[in-house]
């Protein structure tokens, strides 16, 4: 009985999922250095923006319509 109480009390309490922490981008105060950091981040944004994965539903509906 005591063991059961101990097991229950020691079990980790369910934790709420942590919200993603926004990590501030450190700057050096030197334009030529910080500009490259911006470019690196822009390259990711452009890559994401031009990704065609948003059109996965288009592929699905075209396949469905072919078979009506």
């Amino acid at each position, binding site marked *: 009985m005591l063991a059961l109480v101990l097991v229950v009390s020691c079990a980790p309490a369910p934790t709420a999922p942590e919200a993603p922490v926004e990590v501030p981008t450190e700057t050096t*105060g*030197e334009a*030529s250095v910080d500009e490259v*950091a911006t470019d690196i981040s822009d*390259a990711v944004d*452009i890559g994401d923006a031009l990704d*065609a994965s948003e*059109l996965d539903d288009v592929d699905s*509906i075209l396949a469905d319509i072919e078979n*009506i």
Partner: protein
Amino acid sequence: MRKIATILTLAIFLISLMPFSIADHMDEDKSIEDSREDRLNRAEEQEKEKLKALEDEKEIKRKIENPEKEMPRKPEVLQKEKAKAAKITKEEILKERKFKELGKGHLEKFKELEDEELEKFSELKKEELERFADLKKERLDRLKKLKKVELEKLKHLKKQKLERVSKLDKKKLEKISELENEQIAKLAEVKEARLSKIASLNKEHIKKISGLHAEQIEKLSHLDRARLKEVSKLGKAEIKKRLDKIKIKKIDPKLKFKKRIVLKDKKIKVKEKFEQIKEKLHESGEKVKERRRLLLKAKEDGDDDAIIEHAKKGLLRAADAIIAHLEKVKNKVSESEDLTDEEADSILADLDAKISEINDAKAEVEAAATKEEIRAAAKKIKAAWKRIKVKAEQHARDVVNGKVRIILKKSEQLEKKLDRILAEMEEKGIEVEGIDGKITVFSEKVAEAREKLKQSEEKFKEVKATDANENKKSLLEEAKSLAREAHNSLKEAHDILKEITMEIKAAYKEADFEEEDEDELVEVGEEEENE
């Protein structure tokens, strides 16, 4: 009888006293003899000491004049000996004609030197002395710490070259002075920051580089640390071969690695339009989802009219989504400064053609009334989309890789900036522990990115050259993955760069990161291997 007895007793007494008297007399003689001997010994010892001092002096002079023949001695002993010898000759050195003929300012610089420091300059000719005296005090202070033989290696250098070399720190100066006169002169033709970069290599590599032609050394000196290290490991013939493929180009200071300038107003307009297109694409996507749900339900219900209606509308919304996606790519191409006008125009024309193709298909969908006609239109759009999707992805990659290429070039330029700042710090005697090593790591990360980007671009060429759509797709995935790796290496490089920047700023407040000297406006290009 009594008289006789008295006389005998007296005689015996007198005889008994004789040995004492003789002994006393002998002692007196011995003492005189001893003191004479002592004097002679002392005189002899003094003579010996004098001779020894003379011998020592000669020996010290001989050792200073021929240090290479000298056996290793304890430095402090050697220094004492040198100081002893120099002390004797300093005034004599300054009395020499060549020193007397120096201008007042020049002579003052030598007068300020310590005895043993001045002795290192004693063998130089008047014009050589003048070149050394022309140097700023802190530079001469650095050189006077060198050994006499090291210093003499620099005496042949002309004014500008001597100035460049004198800016190096002691460790680098020692490495350089181990080279032959001609080799030193060739290296000293290279500008300070680049000379310092070469001098930070190991002795073996410096020697190998100094054996190249002056033009080859100049070209090599423009390479970043990672490439310089890589090339200096090669054999002499391979170095020449590699250098033949390297081209050093001056860049347009207005463009700064960009291929064109897009005006600010245009950029703002393009950005606004991008947001509208993004919204449109999102709406079309939602509509496609909803139509698909309704279509599947109509199919389940066996409702032919509803099937035709939802299939037709679903097809039109799908075409809208495709067009919106192509517009998005067009938008990024329009604002890209990493494409030439010709490249951008060619991509835009291709995308416009694809949009027209989809619009034509849309017209067919609108005219369709039967299931068969809708099916045919769907097949046509699907086939076009399959083809267009790969092409659009290629264009998107052109934009993204162009961006990564510019980051790479800017990072290479930043390394040159760091070299310039580091050379300034070196001249001022400012040291930041481990900074040289960190810049090398930064350079290696950039080199890693350069290699990955090169591989990615090679895959793209294969994508463009292949006809089979399936092959294109897998090659495109490989190319995208390599470009991502290049991007990650640049990100890591930039994290190191931030650290370096902060450390430099803390130690050297005058560091100017915005200044751009001519070396920073140079681009290193390497021809592809044609096998």
